[in-house]
């Protein structure tokens, strides 16, 4: 049960609360049972990057901790080999 202080949509500290919406995201690599994130697969890695070429955060993509680490490493390897851009201006 919500306490009376929650009724006006404010939390304990008086700040407005934003309840989580929707279902939690599932890690793509866990779902697909991918065991190895290939740095050569740029089409796939691009899904985990912003248009500017930055690596998307875990909270955005929903990746698990292990796979986020693999993604970051793969993107960095791909950048070194000229397969992905460092920054898009």
């Amino acid at each position: 049960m919500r306490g009376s202080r929650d009724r006006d949509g404010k939390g304990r500290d008086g700040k407005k609360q934003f309840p989580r919406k929707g279902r939690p995201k599932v890690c793509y690599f866990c779902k697909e049972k991918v065991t190895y994130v290939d740095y050569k697969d740029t089409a796939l890695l691009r899904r985990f990057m912003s248009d500017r070429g930055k690596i998307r955060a875990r909270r955005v993509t929903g990746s698990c901790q292990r796979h986020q680490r693999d993604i970051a490493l793969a993107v960095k390897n791909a950048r070194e080999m000229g397969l992905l851009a460092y920054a898009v201006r």
Partner: protein
Amino acid sequence: MRTYETLLLCDPRRDDAEVGQTLDRFQALVAERGGEMGPIDKWGRRKLAGEIGDLTDGYYAVMTYDLDPDKRADLEAALPFVEGLVRSKTVRRDVRERRASK
């Protein structure tokens, strides 16, 4: 022996025969160290995502081979002296297969 995979980035300003020589040189280096070459996947010329030095394009080839892990550092040390080779990256291939079979 372990299975390795090396992505080679060759200078695209050289003609196909010269690029072929670069790939042959790499294979020779593997063979000299008792390695066994597997399949070679030639991607050909591709646009780079950004400039590397003054290059905007590159010739890519993926080399798969078996090599004694003790010889790997020795092979890597020889790569900067391969003519026409701009960059290379080696990863273990067997890790992927082992994890996949789990």
